[in-house]
């Protein structure tokens, strides 16, 4: 089973993307494998509405473990198996909480083993100086790390919010050579392009 990692800053919309993308593919219920940083793994079943209530939150670092969902993604006339993995957000600088640092280590470790990465950026906050979601060093390093090694796309999320258009333009000019997909996880816009991108690598 090949794995696709959803990466990005805290609060860039990774978990909501995972859930809504699964719903877009026709899933109503999810079997999720939660891998905790300590090494414990357990399985959880959610219906999508419940999952959104429990797993998605406007406070950053709500997700602190790897959440793996196995999906069948249509590819041409057939379907391919993809493990889509939601991760702990990676922040700029050093986080003061040891628990969260441990979760981020888990994400980084997984990044080294992975074939395909979707890098989410909050489009509405790209240029907001001082905001933790603003595009920064981490995003640059992630792009540099992934180029040439992995299937890698930058996904500009939250395109439904005001200011996201300018954010998208700014991301495009910063990363002129990368695949960039505008998307709104909330409105399920741009999912067709994401699906096509993922399908190419599996």
């Amino acid at each position, binding site marked *: 089973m090949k794995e696709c990692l959803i990466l990005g800053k805290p609060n860039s919309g990774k978990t909501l993307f995972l859930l809504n993308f699964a719903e877009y593919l026709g899933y109503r219920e999810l079997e999720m494998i939660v891998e905790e940083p300590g090494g414990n793994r357990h399985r959880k079943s959610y219906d999508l509405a419940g999952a959104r209530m429990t797993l998605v939150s406007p406070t950053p670092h709500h997700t602190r473990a790897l959440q793996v969902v196995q999906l069948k993604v249509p590819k041409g006339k057939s379907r391919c198996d993809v493990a889509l993995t939601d991760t702990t957000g*990676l*922040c*700029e*600088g*050093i*986080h*003061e909480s*040891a628990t969260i*640092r*441990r979760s*981020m*280590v888990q*994400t*980084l*470790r997984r990044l*080294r*083993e992975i*074939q395909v990465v979707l890098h989410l950026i909050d489009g509405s906050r790209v240029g907001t100086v001082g905001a933790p979601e603003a595009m*920064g*060093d*981490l995003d*640059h*390093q*992630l792009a*540099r*790390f992934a*180029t*040439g*090694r*992995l299937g890698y796309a930058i996904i500009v999320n939250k395109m439904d919010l005001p200011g996201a258009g300018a954010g998208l333009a700014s991301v495009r000019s910063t990363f002129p*050579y*990368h695949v960039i997909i505008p998307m709104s996880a909330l409105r399920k816009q741009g999912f067709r392009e994401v699906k096509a991108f993922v399908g190419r690598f599996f």
Partner: protein
Amino acid sequence: MEKKGGHDPRPKSLGEVLEWVEDGKVGPAGALVLFQEVSQVGEAAGRQELPAKGQVRPGIDESLSELDQLIGLGEVKELVRELRAFVEVQKRRARAGLATEPLVLHMIFKGNPGTGKTTVARILGRILRDMGVLQKGHLTEVERADLVGEYIGHTAQKTRDQLKRALGGILFIDEAYSLARGGEKDFGKEAIDTLVKAMEDHKDDLVLILAGYQEEMERFIRSNPGLRSRFPIHISFPDYSIDELLNIADLILKRRQYRLSEEARQQLSLLLKAGIQREPVPSNARLVRNIIERSIRRQALRLLHQADATREDLMLITKEELEGIKPDEGMLDPW
């Protein structure tokens, strides 16, 4: 990034970088920078830790040297070297964020029998696999009868079945021109159409090689104008010279742990000259192999009742063995 500056010595392994993050010595962005530094130091180790499609496997030198060992075939060897360089540079370009060219590798092999077309295709499959271009690199060898069916609709099905077997490797169609014989109503045309479609659909995981005699292949390509542009690589396999054939003989014998006496070698050279003149189409390496195999059997016959044969005797093929062989008869019927 500035956070990593104060900490010396630098981390030596990827695991150590992760410890630093956990201890709060460095943030995630800094860790990504260190990942790259560490994997550049231990390039080989880094490669193994990041297996991805398009990765060069260690076996590639072995496959390349196998190709280099083949006698003659300068054109092929040069092409493979070009391809290797091309793939490597495309990868570096991707790393530098530059546009990359897709690799279209469908080929046409033109040459008489026994000039090494199948052998080269087989080695090429392995090389492409080792370069990370093909996933499996196996060779699926088919001919007209495997592709063309008996009734309407049957051909597309049969051809698709063969294509499916070949995915991830090379589909090698021997005497491909026979697909175009029989004119408009022949089902061969349907097979060609199916192949052409598959070439486009499976650009990334299939290499199609059409092989056959020089003249027939050229006529075949002329008769289907679309084919020339779809097969960017044309390779001619020239007939071997007598010297090259003798080298091939040495190679075959060495592999089987036999050797020729000096007189036998001269006799073989005469035989080959006579054989080449007499054959309507030269069969090249196959002619050599057949002669050698025949002489090995004749040597066995000579030694059968010679109980005191030494190790040396058991290896040596003398003039005697080669004298009775006529190059153009007895090849199909060994005795």
